[in-house]
Structure formats: C-alpha cells, structure tokens
C-alpha cells in the first residue's frame, strides 16, 4: 500500500487530513500545481483543522449547557 492509500483508509480526521496533504504533495511533484499553490492548500488544511477544533469545543459547550439547564429544571 502507498502512504496515500494507508492514510485514505483511516477513519480519523488526522488520517484524512494527512491523505489530503499527500494528495497535494503528489500534485506538486507531478507539476499539476505550483509551489505557491501547494503552500496555500496546506495552509487551508491548517485552517480546516482549526475549524474542526473550534466546532468540537462549541458542541461540547452546547451539550454542557443543555445538561446543566436540564439539571436545574428538575423538580427538586
């Protein structure tokens, strides 16, 4: 298996990101994109990671809020 196949088969976000980075690298090596474009696409992957982290934090906060408000509304 190639590194791209190994990472593409990973169900985790990290594995998928690595696969995307490898695809970009391969595109550069095959001269489908310039170095400048490669850098821009790798920067995009970093931004996508940050979006994922912030999204998880926000979903946790939302779940926490629902749990606390649900607890507070119990007829104690």
């Amino acid at each position, binding site marked *: 298996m190639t590194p791209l196949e190994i990472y593409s088969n990973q169900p985790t976000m990290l594995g998928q990101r690595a696969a995307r980075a490898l695809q*970009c690298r391969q*595109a550069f090596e095959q001269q*489908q*994109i*310039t170095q400048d*474009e490669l850098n*821009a*696409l790798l*920067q*995009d*992957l970093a*931004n*996508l990671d*940050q*979006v*994922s982290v*912030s*999204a998880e*934090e*926000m*979903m946790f*906060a*939302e779940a*926490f*809020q*629902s749990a*606390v408000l649900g*607890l*507070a509304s*119990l007829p*104690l």
Partner: protein
Amino acid sequence: MKNTLTILLVSISLLSGCAIWPSHFDGNEQAKLTDIIELTKNSSICDQPAETATLSKTLNFTAGWLMTYGDSVPNNSSLVTMYNNLHQITDEFEKRYSDASKKPSEFYCKSKISNINEAASKILIVSGKRMRP
C-alpha cells in the same frame, strides 16, 4: 438543592465571562453559510476562469460579511474564530484569481472550492445546533 444549582450556574457564568455559553441560533448567519455551501457544491466552474474569479469574490465577500456580523453578536467568539479561518481560505482564493498574470491550476481551484465547502459545512452544523432563543 435548586438554589445551590442556581448559584453554581451564576458563578460559572461570572467566572468564565459567559464564554462557555454559546450564543443563540442566528438565521442570518445560517443563511449566509448555506449560500457558501450551495455555491461550492460543484467545482466544474474551474473550467471557466472568469466565472471562477467572480465566484471567488462572492465567496470572500460572504465570508467577510460573516466575520463582521458574527463579531457584533455577543458571546459569539467560537464562531468568529471559525469565520476567520473560513475567510483566510476565501481571501487567498480571491487574491490569486484577481491577479490576471497568473492562471491558477485546476487542481488548486477544485481543492480550494472543496476546502471552502468543507469549512462552511462544519460551521453550519454547529451553528444550526445552537439553542433557539
């Protein structure tokens, strides 16, 4: 018991500056995010550089709109961070297409549109799950 919980809630909110409480659902933000997702569903536009340049401007304008609008909503810092990441992706896209001397590659264009769609889709999911006021 209930009073204890109320005190606990107020204490948590005050200590954290309410940062742990996400803002309420906002239909304006949801609509703009949906626009971005719909505009980036198909990357076949990459065959037409002039149309792609127009699309990149529209996407960057909308991402900028989200940053400005989102920043004006109280307790919205998590989403503003995400809008900032989205805007960085769209801004680079627009800048590259605004330079007439460069002809961006098809791989770059398709990847960029896919990245914008992915970022907006993720933000839309968390934005849609916010509590309704």
